[in-house]
């Protein structure tokens, strides 16, 4: 019974991950890709972690699993916000800033 739960949840997790990657590849601009990435991937990770909770041999491992998921979500949320701001000028019609844009004039030697 718990095996069935695991199989269903982990399969769903993989499907969401695949959807996230599909979004990353196919969506037209940076921000929508960021959206696909953050939402779908972390949901996928959550589902996989959820599926594995019933397989854990002990409380310590269960706690570790929950901690892993919580950290991944925290990191994903923070970096999504930060990367979105950094990429923002693109939506206003300007080139996004890059480390090579020393003079700030929009011309970059970005590679």
């Amino acid at each position, binding site marked *: 019974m718990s095996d069935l739960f695991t199989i269903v949840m982990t399969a769903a997790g993989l499907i969401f991950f695949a959807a996230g990657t599909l979004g990353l590849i196919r969506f037209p601009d940076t921000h929508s890709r960021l959206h696909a990435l953050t939402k779908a991937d972390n949901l996928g990770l959550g589902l996989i972690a959820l599926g594995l909770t019933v397989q854990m041999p002990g409380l310590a491992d269960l706690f570790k699993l929950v901690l892993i998921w919580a950290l991944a979500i*925290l*990191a994903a949320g923070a970096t999504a916000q930060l990367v979105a701001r950094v990429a923002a000028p693109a939506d206003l019609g300007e080139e996004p800033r890059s480390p*090579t844009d020393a003079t700030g004039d929009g011309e970059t030697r970005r590679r």
Partner: protein
Amino acid sequence: MIASLFDLTLCLLILAVAGAAVFGRAAFMAVVFFIVYGILIAIAWLRLGAIDVALAEAAIGAGLTGVLLLAALSRIMRNIDAPEPAPVLEGKTIATGLASLVVTALVAHAFLTLPEPRGLQSRVTANLADAGAENPVTAVLLNFRGWDTLLESIVLLAALLGVWTLARDDAWSGRAGLRHVTRPGGVLAQFGRILPPIGLLVGIYLVWAGSKQPGGAFQGGTVLAAVWIVTIMAGLMQAPRVADRALRAALVIGPVIFLALAVAGVFAGAFLVFPPAHAGWLILAVEAVLTLSIAATLAMLIFGPPEGEEKR
């Protein structure tokens, strides 16, 4: 069978990523591929059953090295014009390529015709009870081959001194690296408040658990260095001054105590011998100070030499 499919996919991915990182012309893309490569190699180590190495690879290859390369790249690209890439199909490039292929073929032949190694697994297991640690990797690192770890910790320190020699004379003894600015109360600042306490616990846990299961001083030290870097990048703390006594004490305490214990071992038998009765807590003591030193050294390596900003 499925396991082989997984391994094959992993190997192909690793080769593709490594190729893209090395042959790609765009520097930033190469750096990102290198970070990806670190993550994939960590998975490969897991498949080979080397969990301690996978821990170290995940922390360093995917974390610290990425930060180092990105920081270096942003400084280089800002200051110089990247030169035009050299043409690939020149005569000397082809000759070098052929010579390398020949050497590779010779080495591969020599390697493949070696007899099957029996390995030291049985010897290590036989002596594990006297080693003071249940994790055979820790026993090897800190007891059976303590020499290597002692020298490595000194080498790390030497690398840091090498980085510090890049400081300008008038910048010496200032704060390491550039000063970070962050919006107070912004996402980065809050993240920098939440992550480090968790990271601190995880780092200490890794060192503590290292005696019985995968973990150890190096892995724990790297995690601690990483959370220190996050705290500083989030603008919540400033990088320490290079002349700071506490910092310098932290940097040397690991090698110094390890060396002292090694010399003390002379009275127990030979240089760098841990008497079996005390090996357990001796190893833990060495790991604790080594963790501190490794964390401090790695973080300082990433920050770089003092930039003398206050005097600009």
